């Protein structure tokens, strides 16, 4: 067991980090928010970096890496609030041609466990070439142009544009329930990576601001109440990091444990870390944190989007409880 990030993994992480920092500075997020929340050129470059083909076999033109690397890369994407249906496209790489190259953008909708009340809310409908729909029966492929939908004027996350549709065509069935369930767990792991990235970046922003900003004649980061707020942010980040890495490692090597259990734990704690850290980041920024200009809000809004996709927190808590119940039964059986 060596749970540390390997040197190759570190290099990959740093590469994606410097790419994202270069291409998605704060000003660019503001432009994207104005301009519809998507950047096809960026998407192509992400494809070239291997974001979508990371887990594809080398023989098929992929990088032949696994979920460990994927969650690291998705954390970097999360750190800069990279827009677009990133997880859906990576999940679809072996199902749909052209995804690896960034030529075909795949989005999706998760209806597992029954649709939510109200209309379907479809993310990035104007930008996707293929829409996947996942439900308890399996996985379908829909043509976005065949969907009757109208744009939502004010989506919560300005970088995640939405359309609403009252109904969906059936589309073409791609896989059955087992495959869909597997993809859903994998998607939750990728989102956990993005959520971890949000927890990280909002802590970094808070610390940088608190060191700089002076009130009462000294940096506000010297006030113990704020120091402790940020210490708690750090703990949440580290808890999320550990769980997300463990989810990656468990998906890559089923011998080390139950992947659904590890992924549910990761999604739960990473959602909490992202939401709580983004909120704390805004609070620490004070009045400036409530402006559009300070980018903290993009991260809080994105965290909300990610929290309720591929299973919300209540659902993952129930899933964690199911695994706990199995262990409890084993314990009782062992005693008897």
């Amino acid at each position, binding site marked *: 067991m060596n749970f540390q990030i390997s040197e190759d993994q570190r290099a990959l992480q740093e590469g994606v980090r410097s790419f994202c920092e270069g291409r998605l500075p704060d000003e660019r997020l503001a432009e994207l928010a104005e301009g519809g929340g998507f950047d096809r050129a960026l998407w192509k470059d992400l494809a070239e970096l291997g974001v979508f083909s990371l887990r594809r076999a080398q023989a098929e033109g992929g990088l032949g890496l696994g979920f460990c690397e994927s969650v690291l890369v998705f954390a970097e994407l999360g750190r800069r609030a990279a827009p677009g249906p990133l997880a859906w496209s990576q999940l679809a790489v072996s199902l749909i041609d052209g995804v690896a190259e960034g030529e075909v953008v795949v989005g999706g909708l998760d209806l597992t466990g029954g649709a939510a009340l109200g209309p379907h809310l479809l993310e990035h409908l104007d930008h996707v070439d293929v829409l996947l729909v996942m439900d308890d029966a399996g996985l379908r492929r829909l043509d976005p142009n065949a969907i009757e939908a109208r744009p939502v004027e004010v989506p919560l996350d300005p970088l995640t544009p939405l359309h609403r549709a009252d109904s969906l065509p059936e589309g073409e069935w791609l896989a059955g329930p087992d495959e869909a369930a597997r993809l859903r767990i994998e998607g939750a792991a990728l989102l956990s990576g993005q959520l971890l990235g949000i927890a990280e970046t909002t802590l970094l922003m808070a610390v940088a601001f608190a060191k700089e900003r002076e*009130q009462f004649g000294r940096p506000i980061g010297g006030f113990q109440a704020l120091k402790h707020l940020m210490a708690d942010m750090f703990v949440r980040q580290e808890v999320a990091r550990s769980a997300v890495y463990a989810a990656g490692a468990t998906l890559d090597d089923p011998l080390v444990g139950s992947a659904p259990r590890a992924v549910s734990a990761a999604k739960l704690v990473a959602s909490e870390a992202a939401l709580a850290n983004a909120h704390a980041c805004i609070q620490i920024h004070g009045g400036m944190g409530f402006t559009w200009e300070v980018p903290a809000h993009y991260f809080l809004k994105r965290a909300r989007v990610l929290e309720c996709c591929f299973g919300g927190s209540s659902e993952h808590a129930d899933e964690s409880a199911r695994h706990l119940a199995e262990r409890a039964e084993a314990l009782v059986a062992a005693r008897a």
Partner: protein
Amino acid sequence: MDLRYSESDEKFRAELRAWLAEAVPAFGPPPGIHDWAARRLYDTGWQQKLFEAGYAGINWPREFGGRDLSATEQLVYYEEIARAGAPYIGVNFVGLLHGGPTLIAEGSAEQKARHLPRILRGEEVWCQGFSEPSAGSDLAALQTRAVRDGDDYVVSGHKIWCSFGPVADFGEFLVRTDPDAPKHRGISWLILPMDLPGIEIRPLPTLMGESDFSEVFLDNVRVPARNRVGAENDGWRITNVTLRFERGTAFASEMINLQQTLAKLTAFAKRVTSDGVRAWDDADLRRRLGHLAAELDALWAMVKLSVCEAEAAGIPGVGASAVKLFYTELNQRINEVGMRLLGRAGLCRDEIEDMPNALIAGRSLQSLSLTIAAGTSQIQRNIISERILGLPREPRPTAEKAKPA
């Protein structure tokens, strides 16, 4: 420890309720949030209607057009206004809830006569110019200079978080009149006519995507010295009067709104089903909502207790910090549970039929400002621990001079 409203309170309630039942539906829906001119017209129009019906300035002196009623009648007023879904106080916020009350307490006879009746009649809109880019939690560090020149002050500086700036006629502005005094002792409180030359107002968009706030740049603005409220350099004391009002009673109607929000969430939870199971039958969600309802009841009792204590004492007490702290964090928790209940619908701020999604998604963003504005939660905790519990004050490592380093 009597919670029963008096007969006259109940009579007042009955009259007000009857009037609202007619007036509110007749008044029509509010304009879009970006149309400032229409918003001013709508909000002041409603204030005018209130005034004409005798429901403006419930606890303001009669001589300025108020009703001079008790604090409990003021509570009845808030309850009924919220119950009837009456228009929000809107652009009248600063004038009615802290600028006006500060004038009543500290203004000159001339200032009161000039402004109070017009505020009540919806003829005068006020904004607030307290904070500056470098003076947020440390408000007393403000640097906007006012230099006396004959009968005027010449004011230059940069204010931020000026609510309703684009439509305001006057502003309550804090300025530094003595830069050599300790920082709390060189401040004055000015009534700033917003149409004076040298004032530039720039919108400051919030994370809501709205521009209810502005930055205000003041470049050698000549303000008549008679617009100063209170003595020169005594502005910090007056500011604290303003802040007590801002932290104390100003939230009452929002609290009642919050009770309605919770009831709407509950009605929704009782209707919404997933896999045939009502959200309300989920003990987790149901108990969270029940728990929040209990806390809201406790909060409302807390408001009644502090209103009665304030009426006995004459001014809102420092206990207002406890009310503000608890209310603002409870508001955030309620919206958080709301977002949890809505799930993906909470990602859409457009109205969806029969769903409270736009309400909750908007409020969950808006509520982020509550623990920051009018003194952050951290500042409120400092006030409680130092002024109520008597714990040692924060160390002040720098000399308390106003001049920047």
